[in-house]
């Protein structure tokens, strides 16, 4: 089982994207979302990301992260270094579309961190018009 962690500058945005992603499949405990800085403002908290990763790693064989942009990406990278797990990757994908693709692909019994990351990254090619 592969877990997903959605990270956004806004806790509400992250929770909303998680809600949509859960529609595609997956279980409550394998898709997590964090957002907001340590004071609850716009930003991200490395400690929160790290805790969410540690929780997911207890339930799953690996985690694919979907992050919004800028400092959220840097904080995600720093958190990965701190949990010292090889089984966590960041998908280079749009956060919402990538999360939907990843959630669908993570339900496959053969899913791996790599296969879920690839599905998430395929979302970069989604055309809307």
């Amino acid at each position, binding site marked *: 089982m592969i877990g997903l962690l959605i990270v956004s500058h806004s806790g509400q945005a992250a929770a909303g994207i998680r809600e949509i992603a859960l529609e595609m499949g997956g279980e409550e405990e394998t898709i997590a979302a964090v957002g907001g800085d340590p004071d609850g403002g716009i*930003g991200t*908290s490395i400690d929160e990301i790290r805790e969410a990763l540690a929780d997911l790693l207890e339930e799953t064989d690996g985690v694919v992260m979907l992050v919004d942009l800028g400092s959220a990406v*840097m904080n995600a990278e720093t958190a990965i270094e701190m949990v010292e797990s090889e089984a966590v990757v960041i998908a280079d994908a749009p956060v919402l579309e990538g999360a939907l693709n990843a959630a669908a692909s993570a339900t496959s019994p053969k899913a791996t961190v790599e296969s879920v990351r690839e599905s998430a990254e395929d979302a970069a090619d989604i055309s809307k018009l």
Partner: protein
Amino acid sequence: MGDETRQREALLEAIENVADRIDEEKTHLTDLDSAIGDADHGANLNRGFKAVMDKLEEMDDDADVQEIVKTVGMTLVSEVGGAAGPLYGGSAMTASTELEDGITAESSVAFAEAFLEKLQDRGDARVGDKTMVDAITPAVHTYKKSIEQDDLPPLEALAKAVDAAERGVEFTVPIRASKGRASFLGWRSTGHRDPGATSTLFMLEEILDTADDYLEGDTDVDATSPTIPDEEPEEE
């Protein structure tokens, strides 16, 4: 620098001076950031350094300089919330291992280089992107050359590094941002001083000022930067 206790003292004072300076300049930094970013640089850094000061108060008296720098880094990483956390804090954490045997001319060069390397890697930024890299890169290069090639005393090397950082900050004014939130503005980001490069300069100035108090060199050092005018960024 002399014995362990004195190094510790100097380091703790430098950190306190940096924290005070960030507090004094938080509005200025936020104003710079509101022109081209998301207006949180001053507040974020200030929150981080306030937490650093609290953390250092709780720390054991026998913590060595490596441990102190690592703690500063970890606290910034946990508390800042924006890009400055992983950039300043993460780089300090990684580079702190270079100070294992204390602060010497040699280990300070190694620290500076390790800091820069981590910073560039984490931020994926190069000189000319209008980021803190524009201030730190010339500072680190100048420091290294001054120590290793020109055999200057560390205090003089540091003064030259601060001077280089200052020119790096000025260099960010006329260029267009290609990293960070400011890059979304395209050409409209030109004409503004980069807040990250500016906070880097403030920190280096305070480190120089503290080093000047502790290293009894005969170098005449002016830690303030006369060419940075004290002005607010222009409104868009």
